[in-house]
């Protein structure tokens, strides 16, 4: 048995479990101990589901005694607290849902359970997935395991920090504008946002329905492929779920890069970008060139500078409609005032945090009479242009490479009072959601001990291309093997 179970990948854990060198109960106990040890410093979990985890581990052990167990069987997973878990509190890190116990599982949770996964807890996040640092959680701020004075990124900051800190073998996150990739980059783990529609959103608490997508956060690319095999695919309960067949993503591993055409869009190497990040990503791309890829350094996507405005009109507009359901009647926090209108307004005033209110206000304004055409409709049209520009690029290139974020993790408190500065930390990831594309963030270096993430983007349903490039790069470096000092 290896000394440090906290560093295992899914595929390593599976070998040990399958070979009966380790039981799922022992593995789960080791993770629960690790959680009690590091959680006071990291604060990645809203809920630790110890009883559920041990029960699922026992069931997995019975199954692992036979043959053909799924690679996820018996392996502890952390789930972002935005995905419904039957009988387990699902808060979205919001006061308004603080005591919500869903009566059903999200499709992804159902699928993990069908693989006999061990659900070890629910991860902290920015409230309703709105934010880039977890500072918008109504409960507490998660710390970056690499430097506890810094943010882990967001909104899936708890998921990323939990995996980096060895509190779970892998995690699920959700990504509306970078919420899987940016924290993955900040915590030096792999974070994958699949094509819009690739993974069912049923049971994912809605933020911006045309942008939201669920995906894995893992310790390496092979694990990412294993989780994708489990969660991807059509679901009749999500009408935006894509009826495309699901390949075996593990077949993308150990591929050849010869003949792979990679573009580097210059608009993503923005002004104000940290020089160390620029250097690390360019070194990463040169590495891919040595490995056989053909690089074009002169790609231009001229509509990129409009992505921020497009995103911050469309996402809050959709959010303002989605969050209209929180009325204190059917579930959630409810303020009891003498009249209906007062109850409703006070429920939302005390139930929602500052960023959620700001986005509801912004979205309501963009959709209101007299402003709809100038803001919302205009943004949807520019959205078309951004998508077209990507479509044209993917006629020439198999993949595009950019930084995941223009900087390394920032200090807690540094951007919280300046919403625009905070929004800018997602500048490299937003366009991908606008166009509905798949993209990954993989570890690509460090600056003074702080992680740097590299983003690989491909065309719709180009997940396999991304995993191929990511795996070849990863195997030629050891960034993914480094662990934070905890």
């Amino acid at each position: 048995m290896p000394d440090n179970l906290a560093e295992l990948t899914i595929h390593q854990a599976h070998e040990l479990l399958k070979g009966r060198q380790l039981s799922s109960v022992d593995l789960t106990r080791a993770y629960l101990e690790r959680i009690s040890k590091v959680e006071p410093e990291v604060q990645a979990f809203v809920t630790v589901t110890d009883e559920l985890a041990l029960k699922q581990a026992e069931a997995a052990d019975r199954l692992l005694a036979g043959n053909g167990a799924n690679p996820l069987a018996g392996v502890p997973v952390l789930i972002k607290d935005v995905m419904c878990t039957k009988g387990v509190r699902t808060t979205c890190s919001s006061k308004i849902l603080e005591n919500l116990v869903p009566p059903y599982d999200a499709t992804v949770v159902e699928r993990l359970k069908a693989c006999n996964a061990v659900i070890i807890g629910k991860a902290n996040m920015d409230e309703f997935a709105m934010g880039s640092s977890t500072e918008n959680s109504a409960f507490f701020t998660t710390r970056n395991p690499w430097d506890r004075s810094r943010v882990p990124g967001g909104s899936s900051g708890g998921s990323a920090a939990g995996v980096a800190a060895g509190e779970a073998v892998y995690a699920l996150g959700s990504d509306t504008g970078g919420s899987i990739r940016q924290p993955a980059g900040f915590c030096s783990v792999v974070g994958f946002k699949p094509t819009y529609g690739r993974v069912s959103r049923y049971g994912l608490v809605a933020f911006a329905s045309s942008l939201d997508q669920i995906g894995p956060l893992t310790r390496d690319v092979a694990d990412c492929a294993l989780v994708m095999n489990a969660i991807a695919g059509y679901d009749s309960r999500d009408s935006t779920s894509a009826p495309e067949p699901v390949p075996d993503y593990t077949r993308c591993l150990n591929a050849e890069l010869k003949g792979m055409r990679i573009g580097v869009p210059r608009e993503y190497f923005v002004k104000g970008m940290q020089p160390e990040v620029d250097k690390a990503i360019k070194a990463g791309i040169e590495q891919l060139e040595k490995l056989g890829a053909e690089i074009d350094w002169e790609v231009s996507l001229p509509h990129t500078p409009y992505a921020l405005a497009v995103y911050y009109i469309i996402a809050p507009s959709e959010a303002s409609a989605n969050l209209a359901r929180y009325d204190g009647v059917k579930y959630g926090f409810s303020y009891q005032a003498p009249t209906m209108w007062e109850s409703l307004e006070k429920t939302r005033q005390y139930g929602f945090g500052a960023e959620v209110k700001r986005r509801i206000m912004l979205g309501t304004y963009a959709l209101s009479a007299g402003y709809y055409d100038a803001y919302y409709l205009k943004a949807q049209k520019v959205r078309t242009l951004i998508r077209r520009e990507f479509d044209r690029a993917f006629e020439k290139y198999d993949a595009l490479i950019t930084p995941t974020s223009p900087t390394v993790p920032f200090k807690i408190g540094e951007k919280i009072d300046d919403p625009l500065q905070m929004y800018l930390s997602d500048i490299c990831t937003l366009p991908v959601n606008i166009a509905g594309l798949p993209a990954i963030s993989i570890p690509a270096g460090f600056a003074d001990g702080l992680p740097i993430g590299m983003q690989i983007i491909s065309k719709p349903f180009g997940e396999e291309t991304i995993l191929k490039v990511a795996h070849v790069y990863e195997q030629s470096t050891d960034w993914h093997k480094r662990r934070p000092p905890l």
Partner: protein
Amino acid sequence: MKLTREEVLHIARLARLGLTEEDVGRFREQLSNILDNFEILQQVDTMDVLPTAQPLALKNVMRNDKVTPSLAPDDILANAPRQEGGCFRVRAVLE
């Protein structure tokens, strides 16, 4: 352009969002600043460009007209702040 106090209160009313006096002042500043940044979109020529509502361009997704199990009423009501006789209890709408 700076939003007026009345505009902020009007949006809050549309969103049924209670605000403190402090919120109103803060949102006037922050929302105005953010909206000013959105002006950049006016530079883009979108003549004859159709809007994108979602990236898959799916249309009229139909499901089979098949009876499937749904949640039990007790499960649905389990999270209700106020309930009575198997229903959600709400405040009077008409006074």
